[in-house]
């Protein structure tokens, strides 16, 4: 696929996508408020840390303040590094409306990507109250103090989103062959919950579990941007993590585009 046309179309795609996200604001707000898990986990960990701070095997000490900062940041980052293209692709394949997209001289992945990205401003806006709380309870003091980490944050967020999006496209493309490809998404999500640091900061994992997490994409999608924001990494290790994150992003992109291509070929063979 050539890049020239997508780049020219991008502004329009984004504008329409944003208008669409405004039209679906009620659904989105519900969705955002349904991502309660960080708060559930915050309650658990605060109760645990109430008596005495929790010490991680790496030597960091987690008190109530650390948990508050971690899970509130986690909630906000989750809004930015999520994608839902798998559901859209699945739905359109089953309804047959994907045909309308395939008739267009633009790779459908672009329109799925922009519709996901265009919803970001609104999602970010919804997490403003959480940001306010973060400052009100003084948890902002936990944010990274080394200014050299901050320029990396946008790249870490983008890398995290790319992992989420292309995992969605890859799994969505399975719907060309499988009736129940969304179950694969469930598996992905379950792993994501455990290994991304969403339920438990990976820092608190026993060493062997942390080693497993290092070889999976999930921590790079969500845990790493959060840890970066909280200054849990030195510049050197942050750059190494960022490189690993982008390697995952590019790898998943390749897999996703190949699966998409095979899927469309199959779609042409058996019809929609």
């Amino acid at each position, binding site marked *: 696929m*050539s890049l020239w046309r997508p780049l020219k179309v991008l502004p329009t795609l984004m504008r*329409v996508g944003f208008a669409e996200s405004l039209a679906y604001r009620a659904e989105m707000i519900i969705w955002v408020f349904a991502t309660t898990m960080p708060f559930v986990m915050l309650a658990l960990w605060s109760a645990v840390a109430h008596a005495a701070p929790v010490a991680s095997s790496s030597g960091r000490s987690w008190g109530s303040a650390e948990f508050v900062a971690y899970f509130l940041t986690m909630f906000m980052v989750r809004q930015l590094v999520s994608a839902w293209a798998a559901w859209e692709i699945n739905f359109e394949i089953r309804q047959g409306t994907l045909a309308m997209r*395939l008739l267009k001289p633009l790779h459908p992945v672009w329109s799925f990507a922009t519709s996901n990205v265009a919803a970001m401003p609104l999602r970010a806006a919804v997490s403003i109250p959480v940001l306010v709380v973060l400052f009100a309870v003084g948890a902002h003091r936990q944010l990274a103090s080394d200014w050299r980490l901050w320029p990396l944050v946008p790249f870490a967020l983008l890398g995290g989103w790319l992992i989420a999006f292309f995992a969605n496209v890859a799994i969505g493309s399975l719907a060309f062959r499988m009736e129940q490809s969304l179950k694969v998404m469930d598996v992905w999500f379950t792993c994501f919950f455990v290994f991304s640091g969403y339920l438990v900061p990976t820092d608190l994992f026993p060493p062997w579990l942390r080693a497993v997490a290092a070889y999976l994409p999930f921590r790079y999608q969500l845990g790493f941007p959060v840890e970066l924001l909280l200054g849990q990494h030195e510049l050197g290790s942050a750059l190494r993590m960022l490189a690993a994150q982008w390697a995952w992003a590019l790898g998943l992109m390749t897999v996703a585009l190949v699966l998409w291509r095979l899927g469309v070929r199959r*779609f042409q063979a058996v019809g929609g």
Partner: protein
Amino acid sequence: MIRVRGLKKHYRVHKRPPGAAAALKALFRRDWQTVKAVDGIDFELGAGECVGFLGPNGAGKTTTLKTLAGLLHPSEGEVRVDGHEPQRRESAFLEKIMLVMGQKQQLLWDLPPAETFELNRAIYDVPKDVYRRRLDELVTLLALGELVNKPTRQLSLGERMKCELVAALVHGPKVLFLDEPTIGLDVSMQVAMRDFIRRYNQQTGATILLTSHYMDDVEALCPRVVVIDKGRLSFDGTLASLVQQVKPEKRLTLRFASPTTRAQVEALGTVVKFSAAESELQIPAAQVSAVVAKALGTLPVRDLNVENAPLEEVMSELFARTAADTRSTEAVR
């Protein structure tokens, strides 16, 4: 403009028998069968032609249209649309064509249609001035006015279909595939759509291939028809010659000044409808003048009228006939 040679499209589907036991069995083993949606068809369309593509449900119409639009790979045979191989889905090809499906929509549901138009403008990279002129024309022709700024979900089915057409035509396709464009619309809306399609065909010289269940659409728009049944072509020619071939008999309607008996009318030919004041007869084309003369001589005729059999009847006869043919060939085998 369009050339189809020996096109076949076969699918393998699994049978899903009803009942609990069978469903359980299907957990472990599936029975497959081949469906021949399109089974070797040939036809050609010249530039600027508007052709009706007819056939009963499941005859392979939509499959053929989707193949022509590049959504399906042919199992066998060759398809060319303006020199392109559709299944390769090159941008240059996609920019020239459009497929409009009466039952599938591309409009963004919760945004005004104008947004979809603008999106398509960008995707097809239509210059702004060309786009504005074309959109103005389309909106005026279809009498859409301010409707394009209302969210799609608030539009009626007819209004939505008109907007679908606009969205499909923003890039000025040279080849247009219309799959049941008037389905579910009320009669006045059907007439409006028909007028619009005719005018679009005349003004832009676009090639149009259209399927419809409404014979009025076909009669109004398509001088030529191609009939497909069970994946095979059973007719290709003008509408008039189709009627000629399938039902050469004419319909003679007689209105009487004073009551007549059934026997008197039956003496003239096959009675389709009878009442004391008005009757309808079916007579071979060659005998029309003779029968009319006889009727005028023997009956108190006040008024009469000779026409072809209604197209709906022609079609149902044609489909019934091909069904009977297939049955007899199968019996021979």
